[in-house]
């Protein structure tokens, strides 16, 4: 499995410098800390976590939109920030991102044709308008914007949210990617539209054997989209649990994952009203500017062991095959 990795992150970390107040000094804020993981060809990895946990930053690092502070991002074994120009360009073609907000990710003054043909011209895939049109029509058909002739010369504002997100997905497909980062790609869509876009992503994954990093705050959606893949749960810039989706959902092991699953409101009155949420020691999420020592979840964790969890940083333990948990409760198991 390791050698089939298309993307590998090695001890990745990212800090931003923030100013505290008008006259305050500069402070370093670590958003991602020591992140290592690999994603295989055609695999779905769902990255779940609450806002501010660093999941979007992880996505941006992977597609090379921002540079890591330390650590490496390897694309087929090559460090993306240490590549020749040609290699970097082919990496940029192979790895694409779909953003959350289809209202701001499409240029409002460009027609769909221009939005989708620009990357085709840029990377020399098409040379003439005729070729470009043909290719754009094919792409629109592929994302179920049919008949494609009705959409090709429209502006984004003439489309609904779901249709725009389909255009954004079509754009990510223009260069035959092998890896797509979908950052909350359906979160802004209405319930009745959301699922059809998910189905589209699923179909594309099957047809084109694209690997996905599916970033979401919605565990139910992650479960549905990534049932055959893996889930990674992120908390304050670190992965606290990662494993095959059914295992993480049915046998959550990290106290944070458990707390999330026990808290999620669900669209089923009997299930959701019988939930017994975990009593956390604190409701507040620590500030990234002032991370607690030891395990970052320790100030909230009801299973916290004094003198251990607040002193040492837990490693990744493997209580069952391929299911890793970063919690001292699993040390030596």
């Amino acid at each position, binding site marked *: 499995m390791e050698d089939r990795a298309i993307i590998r992150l090695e001890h990745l970390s990212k800090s931003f410098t923030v100013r505290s107040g008008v006259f305050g000094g500069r402070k370093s804020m670590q958003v991602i800390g020591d992140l290592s993981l690999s994603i295989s060809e055609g695999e779905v990895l769902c990255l779940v976590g609450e806002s501010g946990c660093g999941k979007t930053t992880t996505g941006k690092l992977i597609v090379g939109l921002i540079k890591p502070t330390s650590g490496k991002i390897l694309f087929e074994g090559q460090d993306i920030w240490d590549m020749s120009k040609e290699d970097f360009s082919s990496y940029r073609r192979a790895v694409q991102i779909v953003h959350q907000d289809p209202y701001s990710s499409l240029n409002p003054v460009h027609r769909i044709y221009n939005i989708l043909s620009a990357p085709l011209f840029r990377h020399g895939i098409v040379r003439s308008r005729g070729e470009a049109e043909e290719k754009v029509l094919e792409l629109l058909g592929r994302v179920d914007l049919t008949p494609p002739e009705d959409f090709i010369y429209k502006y984004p504002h003439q489309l609904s949210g779901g249709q725009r997100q389909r255009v954004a997905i079509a754009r990510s497909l223009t260069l035959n990617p092998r890896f797509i980062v979908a950052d909350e790609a359906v979160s802004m869509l209405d319930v009745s539209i*959301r699922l059809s876009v998910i189905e589209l992503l699923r179909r594309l994954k099957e047809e084109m054997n694209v690997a996905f990093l599916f970033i979401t705050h919605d565990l139910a959606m992650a479960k549905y989209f990534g049932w055959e893949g893996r889930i990674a749960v992120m908390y304050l810039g670190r992965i606290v649990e990662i494993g095959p989706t059914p295992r993480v959902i049915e046998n959550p092991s990290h106290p944070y994952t458990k707390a999330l699953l026990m808290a*999620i*409101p669900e669209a089923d*009155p009997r299930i959701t009203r019988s939930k017994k949420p975990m009593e956390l020691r604190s*409701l507040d999420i620590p500030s990234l500017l002032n991370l607690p020592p030891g395990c970052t979840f320790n100030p909230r964790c009801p299973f916290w062991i004094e003198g251990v969890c607040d002193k040492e940083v837990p490693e990744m333990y493997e209580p069952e095959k391929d299911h890793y948990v970063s919690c001292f409760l699993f040390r030596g198991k």
Partner: protein
Amino acid sequence: MAEEILNVENLFVEYSNVRGKVKAVRGVNLKLYKGENLALIGESGSGKTTLGTAIIRLLPSSGYIKEGRIVYKGNENGYDISKFSEKELRQFRWKEIAMVFQSALNSFNPVLKIWDQIYDTARSHGLNNRSLVREKATDILRYVQLDPERVINSYPHELSGGMRQRVLIAMSLLLEPKILILDEPTTALDILTQRNIIELLRIIKKDMGLSMLFISHDLSLAAELADRVAVMYAGAIVELGGVEDIFYRPRHPYTLGLIKAVPTVTAGFRELYSIPGSPPDLISLLPGCKFAPRCEHKEAGCENEEPLLVEVNSGHLVACFKHKEISNGR
């Protein structure tokens, strides 16, 4: 049945815009009973927020009530809110019906400390005694599990999303209203914070016995808190019933589609189903059932005439010609 506290009768609300008239609420009839939680669910553009803001008469300037009545029965002599003057409204809002808006950050004035905002609200309703308001505010903030001293002296941006939402809920309870309207109270909050707000609302309902109207696109909020659920589509209520009727025995194809489109985490893995197409344009509505173009149960007649709500079971109303075919969740 319990006592009515609010009765929305045949309400029509429109917005004028350059393209024409947006028919955001079309002939809604809805009763709210004392002490109940009613959830109004629907997607963006279904008219649910318009209905909520029309009830406390806070529609944006382009919106107006075209027809219908909103009868408030919270005190002896019931009155029609839709006929209120601005002055009457100012007395009425917060004191009888309070609303918690969707965006907790935008609901505050960013340059005023929380205390000033609380005092402003109290003063405009005739509570001029600073120390009395202070005492009341302290109590209510403590009640929503906040540290009153810290919160009162903070600016809105110094509080987390969950804390701001709790402050808003506290402020809405300050004048002890009889009805609380909450527009997407948990949207945009983190899961653990959502749970916390839900538990808080549960406690408030138990302690204060007020009536709550939840407006949400999120079915799970309705599943958590509602006694009854009203499903809106294209400006009209298409199904109304007890929470178990709606979730386990839906009779409208749209409700059924919504429920089947939402995955759950704890129940086993199940195949989902998506509703084809997208909601209609509220400016140029076609005759007939507004859901018909997306409906797999439609037949010829559905596109000619709009179905009205009919009672299919005690307290369970559906606006669909084919509801008999959709019994027991298909």
